């Protein structure tokens, strides 16, 4: 029954959004390129060690294209990234693409589970707080949120790890797991760690947006036509509060991605964050480059996804 504003306008909107993403991606690539060039330390020395002879270093630079003029390096770099040719790890000569392909699913898995838990707890908490404004439930949710904001995720992760994995032995201590159930078993604690902050943030946001929506005239209209409270809250209230919530959830997803760096390290599980950290400590420029680019692409992708969700949530964007 619901018309999504005609296939044509929809497709046009999507194309426009995609076109918007292109300069963003180019900008990201340029920034990564510049950052890698201004980092202190010589990648050749970093890769071959202090004992390398000048000839060996020269050979390495030639091989890596580090001797070419900067603009040529830039074009080669951008072209390589766009064709997903991230080069090979300076440490073990593995294809960076293969390293990313192995690690990426773990990070995505962690992000998705953390988001599901965070949103799944955050929204009901927010509804509870908004519908019991200034009562005990609201204060309890406020306390929880404060805690969620205040406790650093790596610290909470360590606490959970010590309690549930080390002492109680309910969850594995490290690794990513094999097969769906084992992987879910492995991802649970790290996801809960990230989800606590999510839930705190989304809970607050839900409360604020809902309270604002509750003051709107159409909520009074809904009551005046005989809708009971649950219907008023969920169908009319929450449905409208979803607009600001979408933005918040999108931003929070981005935060989860960056949060996963520390969490993957604490729980010693594979993932892009872990890959990046070890690459940085080993000055594995090729891997750092690939990892940062993939991370950035994710940010662009999530922004694009948010735009799509907006279309679904807000008819006013849909029909224009």
């Amino acid at each position, binding site marked *: *029954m*619901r*018309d999504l504003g005609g296939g044509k306008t929809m497709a046009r909107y999507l194309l426009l959004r995609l076109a918007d993403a292109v300069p963003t991606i180019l900008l990201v690539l340029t920034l990564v390129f510049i950052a890698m060039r201004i980092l202190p330390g010589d990648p050749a020395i970093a890769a071959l060690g202090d004992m390398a002879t000048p000839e060996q270093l020269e050979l390495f630079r030639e091989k890596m294209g580090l001797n070419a003029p900067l603009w040529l390096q830039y074009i080669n770099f951008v072209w390589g990234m766009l064709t997903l040719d991230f080069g090979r790890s300076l440490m073990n000569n593995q294809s960076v693409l293969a390293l990313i392909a192995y690690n990426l699913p773990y990070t995505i898995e962690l992000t998705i589970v953390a988001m599901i838990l965070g949103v799944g707890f955050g929204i009901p908490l927010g509804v509870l707080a908004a519908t019991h404004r200034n009562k005990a439930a609201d204060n309890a949710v406020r306390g929880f949120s404060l805690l969620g904001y205040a406790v650093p995720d790596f610290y909470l992760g360590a606490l959970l790890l010590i309690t549930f994995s080390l002492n109680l032995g309910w969850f594995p201590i490290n690794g990513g797991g094999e097969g769906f159930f084992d992987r879910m078993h492995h991802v649970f604690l790290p996801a809960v760690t990230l989800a606590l902050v999510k839930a705190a943030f989304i809970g607050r946001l839900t409360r604020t947006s809902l309270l604002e929506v509750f003051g*709107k*005239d*159409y909520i*009074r*209209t*809904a*009551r*005046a*036509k*005989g*809708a*009971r409270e649950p219907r008023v809250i969920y169908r*009319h209230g929450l*449905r*409208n509060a979803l*607009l600001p919530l979408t933005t918040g959830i999108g931003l929070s997803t981005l935060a989860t991605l960056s949060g996963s760096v520390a969490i993957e390290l604490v729980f010693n599980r594979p993932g892009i964050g872990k890959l990046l950290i070890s690459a940085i400590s080993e000055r594995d420029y090729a891997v750092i480059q690939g990892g940062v680019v993939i991370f950035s692409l994710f940010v662009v992708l999530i922004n694009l996804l948010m735009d799509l969700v907006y279309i679904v*949530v*807000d*008819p*006013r964007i849909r*029909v224009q």
Partner: protein
Amino acid sequence: MTVPLLKVDNLAVEFGPKANPIRVVDGVSFEIPPAGAVGIVGESGSGKSITSLSILRLISEPPGRIVQGRIEFNGVNLLDLPRSEMPDIRGRDIAMIFQEPMSSLNPVMTIGDQIGEAIKLHEDMPGEKRRERVIEMLRLVGIPDPAGRLDSYPHQFSGGMRQRVMIAMALVCNPKLLIADEPTTALDVTIQAQVLDLMHKLRRTLNTAVLLISHDLGVIADVCERVVVMYAGRVVEEADIRSIFRNPQHPYTRGLLQSIPKLDDDRDRLYQIPGSVPLAGSVKKGCPFYQRCSLRIDKCAQEMPPMFSFGPDQRAACWVTAGQADAKAKEVAL
């Protein structure tokens, strides 16, 4: 005399902390006969909207609360009903439309769904029939191509059209009473006239009683048979339309009438009642209009005047005019 459809009796509404409440509606009484039309007129802050919201018990508590009085609908005191029974009455027996058509419709639901929801809440009707009913209702309120507009969203309608949609939504369950709180205030004058015409037409076809809230006596005269004049939370005069215009008894009503611009006016400045409405609940003693009244006597500052009867269809709360009319005016027992 017929049994009234709605009888509001000595209603009082307070806001703010219980220890230091502000009484924004005090001792308000009026009646609406079945299929009748009554208007409430008053300035902003006179308590007319709060009165209308109280009937459906839509005042948010806290901070507001109804502290005394009865609201009888078909003989049942709505204030005695458990809160959980009010939704059954809202929309089905008593429907309400509001001042702001731009913001009174849910922006993320199609208007077909919003009107359909009103039916779904009160009647067991299969989807196809419900759809037909919605289309029929939209046609009745004058939306062109109603079947084609079902899936439109509120932002695709103009203000006047949205108010028509609101009216369609309010009347779709055939309520016995429609409360319209400033339904035309936010609209252009031409659209205002169209919406008033529509309300006229619907009253005749559907036999719905109307309680029309407005600050505009002209609008009320257009639709209603009786009018209740409110000032600072109190009813100061109540009469049939003819008496109000021909022979207003309360100085405030007289002031209101004088400040209506007339086509053959050659005054440079319009009349205005001197002073401004006292803050809600600030008048503790005497007549709330005392400060601005041109007829005031000392007694007015001391004692709140009761309602005096000026003939069968007119009552007003004024010591002075009641004294002038003395033989005929009788104090009405509350």
